[in-house]
């Protein structure tokens, strides 16, 4: 059983699955559009939580949020199911495939055999689409892969029932009801306003203020934790910013692509020019990554403490730019 499903590669899995499922149902929605309407852009530092033995920092909204907000704002109804038992989860999946309904699944990355070994971490908020089954092998469209792939029943069960933070519990979803015509204009305005509110939030760990907090921490780490730990932390920041799924520059380029598309759709010239401003901010994030990598290139060698101050300054400059940017964006819409 194989469903006629077109695989499009995307930068990020969550946007990609939504965009691919929408396209399958005859609605052309690009990946940046899903990301923008779902208010995917964010900066957040989560104190006390450690990921891979380093502070948790994210450049995007919580897993599932982009998806929920997008569905709500454009008026698409998704059915979502979670399961206690793997047998029930498999049964429901097989039923859907028999009815020629491709479904999205939330999975853990650690046991995804087609990923390079180095990328297999205990991260449970990855998304893919199952679009068929041949014998006991499922046909998989993983949006971050260039081509479609496959997983056996056993392999799929393992990733659907991965454990730890954000355990998927067999989470399966697919669209069931669509509006007659897709009205993106209002959804775009809502999405942008939400992002501006998040980025300008008066909370020290979120948005522009969150970036400044991290800059402060970067100054402290080498003195408090030693250069080895400081370098490990820095490496983690860059990984969160640039790892698979971000589209480069901590999602800033995807967001710029969204602003350009939205500007044209709404006939709003200001959004188009703000898009190129966002691109420049993305470039600054890339420069930050390059300079940070010069520090952590040698993992444990002694480095002059001043170099940490330098990149902290860079981050603060980015934060100031983004503050001005989002204030302008708020007015432009």
């Amino acid at each position, binding site marked *: 059983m194989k469903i006629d499903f077109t695989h499009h590669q995307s930068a990020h899995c969550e946007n990609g699955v939504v965009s691919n499922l929408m396209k399958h149902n005859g609605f052309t929605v690009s990946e940046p559009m899903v990301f923008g309407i779902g208010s995917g852009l964010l900066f957040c530092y989560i104190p006390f939580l450690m990921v891979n*033995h380093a502070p948790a920092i994210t450049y995007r909204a919580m897993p599932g949020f982009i998806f929920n907000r997008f569905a709500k704002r454009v008026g698409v109804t998704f059915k979502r199911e979670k399961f206690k038992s793997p047998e029930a989860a498999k049964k429901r999946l097989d039923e859907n495939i028999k009815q020629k309904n491709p479904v999205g699944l939330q999975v853990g990355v650690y046991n995804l055999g087609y990923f390079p070994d180095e*990328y297999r971490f205990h991260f449970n908020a990855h998304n893919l689409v199952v679009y068929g089954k041949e014998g006991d092998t499922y046909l998989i469209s993983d949006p971050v892969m260039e081509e479609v792939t496959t997983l056996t029943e056993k392999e799929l069960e393992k990733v659907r029932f991965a454990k730890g933070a954000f355990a998927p519990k067999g989470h399966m979803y697919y669209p069931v009801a669509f509006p007659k015509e897709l009205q993106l204009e209002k959804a775009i305005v809502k999405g942008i306003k939400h992002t501006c509110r998040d980025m300008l939030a008066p909370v020290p760990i979120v948005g522009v203020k969150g970036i400044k907090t991290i800059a402060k921490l970067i100054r402290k780490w080498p003195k408090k934790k030693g250069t080895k730990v400081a370098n490990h932390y820095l490496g983690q920041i860059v990984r969160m910013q640039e790892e*698979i799924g971000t589209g*480069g520059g901590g999602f800033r380029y995807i967001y710029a692509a969204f602003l350009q598309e939205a500007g044209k759709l709404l006939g709003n010239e200001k959004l188009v020019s703000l898009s190129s401003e966002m691109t420049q901010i*993305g470039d600054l994030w890339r420069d930050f990554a390059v300079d940070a990598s010069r520090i952590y290139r040698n993992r444990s060698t002694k480095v002059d403490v001043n170099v940490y101050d330098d990149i902290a300054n860079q981050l603060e400059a980015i934060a100031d730019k983004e503050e001005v940017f989002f204030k302008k964006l708020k007015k432009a819409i």
Partner: protein
Amino acid sequence: MKRSEVPQDKSNLGTANLRELCYAVDENGEYTTEHTSGWDPKTIALTNAIDDIKERVAAAKKRVLANETSPIEYYMELHKMDLSVLASYVGMWKWRVKRHFKPSVFKKLSAKTLQKYAEVFDVSVEQLQQIDS
């Protein structure tokens, strides 16, 4: 970032014939996507993270052989887990798993508990109990 500037550095992605997607602007300032084979700043960060895990695994092994901890900790590090991830995989409280790190406690574990750990780590119970130096 301009389309022509999308980095094409060598990286671990190449081993799986994988290229990822980047967003960039073309000559006319229009947004488009471009494949990238990798970028050194993030490859270095990833390689460092992997080296860090390898060091943790080696250190855990040393401590198992010195009878300072049980093989469970070694296998936990080997599978890139931390205490909370392992605890949720075996379905036990964190403090219980931590207690099983004690060699004296580990020796007295029931066959059933050992089996649970062995399944999670995808090894036999014998392999779980014996670590080769």
